[in-house]
């Protein structure tokens, strides 16, 4: 199945997560008007969200994102986790 979730950060940026999932999150694509340093870390953020069970908690997803070495600007790991939970709901 496919799904999309998005979070508009108050006074911040829009983050969209597109996910393909079954009983696990198979693939994730992150888009939006945020900033990320280094930009190449986008693939690492996507990879960190993949492989989790679809009923993974927002906290677990947030922790997985926090493990990625990158500076998220205009959004944070919690926003990505929330958008992912919405995408697979």
């Amino acid at each position, binding site marked *: 199945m496919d799904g999309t979730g998005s979070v508009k950060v108050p*006074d*911040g940026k829009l983050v*969209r997560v597109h996910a393909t999932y079954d009983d696990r999150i198979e693939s994730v*694509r*992150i*888009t*939006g*008007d*945020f*900033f*990320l*340093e*280094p*930009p190449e870390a*986008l693939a690492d953020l996507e990879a960190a969200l993949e492989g989790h069970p679809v009923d993974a908690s927002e906290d677990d997803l947030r922790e997985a994102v926090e493990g990625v070495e990158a*500076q998220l*600007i*205009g959004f944070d790991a919690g926003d990505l986790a929330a958008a992912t939970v919405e995408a697979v709901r």
Partner: protein
Amino acid sequence: MNWRIVNEGTYSEPVQQALEEVLTDRLDRGEMDPTFRVWYRDRRAVPMGRFQAYADEVAVDYVEEHDIDVVRRITGGGAMYVEPGTVITYSMYVPRSEVPDDVEESYATLDRWVIDGLQEIGLDVEHEPLNDISHPDGKIGGSAQLRTGDAVLHHTTMSYDLDTEEMLRVLRIGEDKISDKAVKSAEKRVAVMRDYLDDTREEVIDALIDAFRDSYGGTAGSLTDEELSEAYELAEAKYATDEWNKKL
């Protein structure tokens, strides 16, 4: 530190965006002086943020029908609609050692001179975190940054006299399926300088260059043939291709 000030050269959007990568990399490698560059465009375009999805941001049929170049930037941030004579875009290629490590602070620091310059000619603007230049009536412009090992690219686009109705046809914020309220708020969010100033666009650019010099100094210069030929090559290989522009 001697800044090169480049206030010349009209290029297509893919070449403009290729220049950003070429010049930032050259500064990063220590092959270039810090540079301030004012952009001149030859046609209207949509520079889009690096992480944005093409189909989410532009009215695809409209931009294709009207031959509007949609080009993915090397920097994050949002999509803008730009026209040759109605926006002002400039870039700063700054040594990383001169820029605060804190990203939010660095936007405020690198926008400081432009806020001062616009206030000097009577425009009521201020820096609004993270990356906006705001007038009480709305957003006049926005900046975006990219950091490499030893360089920071900071580029900014401001509305001088942008056709905001056309903007709403080009960008998806103008679509019917988004509620009237959303469109109104998008329209409200953009303020254009010409509503508050009698100065021509050239006069505003001159005032900005003066303000830049007051803060950083600098000498008028040109892009080198080498820089330009590298940018033309990179434009063709990357910034003019669907592979890059429509990759998301």
